[in-house]
């Protein structure tokens, strides 16, 4: 199968909610570079279908998440406007395969951040806001099992996101140790703190800026950057109520 066909197969899996076999299992040679090209082709297909790009997401940035999938380097994906979940909202199960949720820090920039050579200080100087957020991941692969190349081709399992209202920028110094609780139907199932993301979620933004520079791209002002999962992802089923509690704000949804 060529890369374009793989991109179409993955998009079809999204549209039909039908999981597929790992690409790496069928293709003799499927490199990380190939996988990135497939991801870019997938974005192109979405844009041609009338979707809009609205941000980026980082994946595999926490030890817990890396352990989860047995992959030990950060990766990136893109966010489409259609991924956004209305606040206090509903997550549709019939457009997804086997979704999971994880708490994240979302970052919005007030000016473009163009690598290479972006430093942590550059990120801090470009910040418009830092927001509590959650991400829905939903692998298009059977049983949520994949290799690094597979998940990169699959847009790092991106499926949905919700960004809070409270700007935490004034509390930047205490961001890394804000205590976050994830509740499923009222019970605490995960806890964590933003330090789980590379020790500091702003490092995730720095990494993204420098990685986009390899394709001569920048992080544009105003887009959403999801910096990476803070806890292990939590699976949910139809009817489940999920709450992600930050000290400053609770993000919640019901799976319908």
């Amino acid at each position: 199968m060529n890369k374009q066909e793989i991109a179409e197969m993955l998009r079809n899996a999204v549209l039909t909610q039908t999981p597929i076999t790992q690409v790496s299992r069928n293709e003799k040679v499927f490199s990380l570079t190939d996988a990135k090209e497939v991801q870019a082709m997938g974005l192109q297909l979405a844009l041609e279908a009338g979707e809009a790009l609205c941000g980026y997401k980082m994946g595999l940035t926490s030890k817990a998440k890396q352990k989860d999938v047995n992959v030990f380097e950060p990766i990136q994906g893109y966010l489409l406007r259609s991924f956004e979940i209305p606040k206090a909202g509903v997550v549709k199960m019939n457009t997804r395969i086997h979704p999971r949720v994880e708490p994240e820090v979302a970052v919005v920039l007030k000016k473009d951040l163009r690598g290479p050579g972006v430093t942590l200080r550059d990120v801090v100087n470009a910040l418009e806001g830092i927001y509590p957020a959650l991400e829905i991941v939903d692998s298009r692969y059977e049983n949520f099992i994949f290799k690094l190349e597979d998940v990169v081709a699959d847009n790092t399992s991106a499926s949905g996101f919700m960004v809070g209202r409270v700007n935490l920028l004034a509390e930047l110094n205490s961001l890394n140790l804000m205590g976050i609780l994830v509740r499923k139907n009222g019970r605490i199932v995960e806890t964590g703190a933003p330090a789980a993301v590379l020790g500091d979620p702003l490092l995730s933004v720095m990494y993204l800026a420098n990685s986009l520079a390899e394709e001569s791209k920048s992080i544009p002002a105003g887009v959403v950057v999801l910096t990476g999962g803070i806890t292990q992802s939590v699976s949910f089923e139809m009817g489940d109520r999920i709450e992600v509690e930050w000290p400053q704000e609770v993000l919640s949804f019901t799976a319908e």
Partner: protein
Amino acid sequence: MGLSQSELLDIADKLDKAEATCTPIESLVDTYPGMEEKDAYQIQWIIASRALRAQRHLVGYKIGLTSLEAQKHFQVYEPDYGHLFDSMLINEEGEIDLTQLIQPKIEGEIAFVLGRDLRGPGITPFQVARAVEFVTTSFEIIDSRIKNWKITSKDTIADNGSSARFILAGQKEKLEGLNLAHLGLALYKNNDVVVTGSGGAVMGNPLNAVAFLANTLAKHDRFLMEGQVILSGSIGGMVSMQPGDHFSVEIQSLGRVSTRCKGR
């Protein structure tokens, strides 16, 4: 049916010896299938009273099995506790001598120091809050005396909650204005974040765990005393330790403490 007094003494001997010689023993529940939870606590108390007779001082308690994850793992939906003796305290900036331990793991916790006695039954989390002098960041080093950590909850209760050492941070904070459930924790191993969590991991709020302890001790006519330390339960999970490893843990508003492992 439970165990006989001589069996209880026998098991206490075995656990004492295992700790003293750093030689783990087989699971108690495997060897004594009839062992009940009350037997396990009796064994713990026999060991604790021997420690007191050996001129060690009871300085507080640790609470375990406080997270839903740990409770699910052991299929026991209630916390347990162990005794803390002065001999287990490592001073801030002190090192952990791994040659004295069997298979240690380290975890970060919120520690309480009481400003007055807390006597159950009927103690609420609010009464706990009023009795707390200060809270701080702590490390607990746990070390099962049972081979390969193949433990049931009864094994760990008999084995003093698997407790081995503890370290308290220098910072001391009053409870006023703090919401312990939303204090984040990060545990660093050799400068990498390996665990994060939030105080709510401990029974929704660590104050609930201390109330549980006060009320459980009351069933045996015991109480928590002014000045005692309570390690309220693991936040985010435990990490194994090797010689040369450096650990630090920081909790929002409560400060940071570090230690290094030496030995072998």
